[in-house]
């Protein structure tokens, strides 16, 4: 089980890695923008991606599109402050599997990740 955390904020990445650890996911790589994320998914198979929306170089939503265009089917969770319904729909259309609004509660994100992985059978 290997996960990729994508966010341009180092603090956010740290918080997300902490949340993943609580869901017993400790094998985690990091990317700080969409370009790095796409590159990482080409080199490595991930069973889970946590993706920020607003990042320099390439937005998270564009990175999701590119990852899906590679034919990758792992769950991708958008973790973002973009809370409007239209934004959520845009993300899901682009290929995101789920959505978490920042700031999230640690327990919420753990539950969501566990549910998602149980559903995809990727545990």
């Amino acid at each position: 089980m290997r996960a990729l955390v994508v966010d341009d904020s180092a603090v956010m990445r740290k918080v997300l890695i902490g949340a993943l650890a609580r869901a017993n996911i400790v094998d985690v790589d990091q990317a700080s923008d969409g370009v790095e994320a796409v590159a990482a998914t080409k080199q490595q198979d991930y069973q889970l991606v946590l993706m920020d929306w607003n990042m320099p170089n390439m937005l998270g939503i564009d990175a999701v599109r590119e990852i899906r265009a590679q034919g990758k089917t792992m769950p991708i969770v958008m973790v973002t402050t973009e809370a409007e319904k239209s934004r959520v729909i845009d993300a899901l259309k682009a290929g995101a599997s789920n959505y978490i609004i920042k700031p999230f509660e640690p327990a919420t994100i753990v539950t969501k990740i566990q549910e998602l992985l149980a559903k995809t059978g990727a545990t």
Partner: protein
Amino acid sequence: MEESAKQTLEEWVITMDARTFNKFREIIYEKSGITLGPGKEALVSARVGKRMRALKMNDHKEYLNRVIQDSTGEEIVQLLDVISTNVTSFFREDAHFHFITEQIRKWLANGQRRFRFWSAASSTGEEPYSLAITLSEAFNGYTVDIKILATDISTRVLQKCREGCYGADKVKPVPKGLQERYFTRAQGKDGPLYTVKPILREMVVFQRLNLSTPPFPMKGPFDIVLCRNVMIYFDDTIRKNLLAEIYRLLKPGGNLIVGHAESLTGMLSKFQSVRPSVYVK
């Protein structure tokens, strides 16, 4: 029924023993960072009593055990709900809202079109909606991307925020013209009710957040953070960490606004004072 409940409540106020109080105090501090000084037994008893009545319990120790044994953490949330105070009103300390308007005008003139605000202890919504009204007025005629994040530790008050529904006495501080522009008036069973219009509601995102446990799962940058009348409940360590976290989340030149009676003097934070209760990164 009401009378007997009142009487029982008074008995509780008298009977909470020091040991139980200390245990509550420890749990509350550990989970929320709120410091309850000695002599707050009566206050804690009365507030905890409210929750116990809802659960039809009449022994503080029994309730304490329930809090300790609840592995879901839900009862702790309920406990913090009744303990955290919710004194707030529309346009409380209106000088702050004038300051915000001035800042917006300055930033608009500089070409800024994306704005992020954070009402850190939003309580029942008066503060974030006052902010939303102020911003709507200041941005009138401009196409901008605005978002207000409203957080509180209490799930109960966040629910009130989402509903955005207030009695006539609550909206009194809102000037008449603004009331008409931003609220829908309807007749409730205890008098008129004012509900915020979607244009305001859509500007605000509500999320639960415990201010005593940074780093917070967000990255900002915010233009203005309102953190008013909440740090008084925290001890110096938590206050210092919270200030450092707000500093991280603000843009350079962004503002932190605290309550008028609060001061960051001697807090060893990186903030510069702009005027009383207003700081800049």
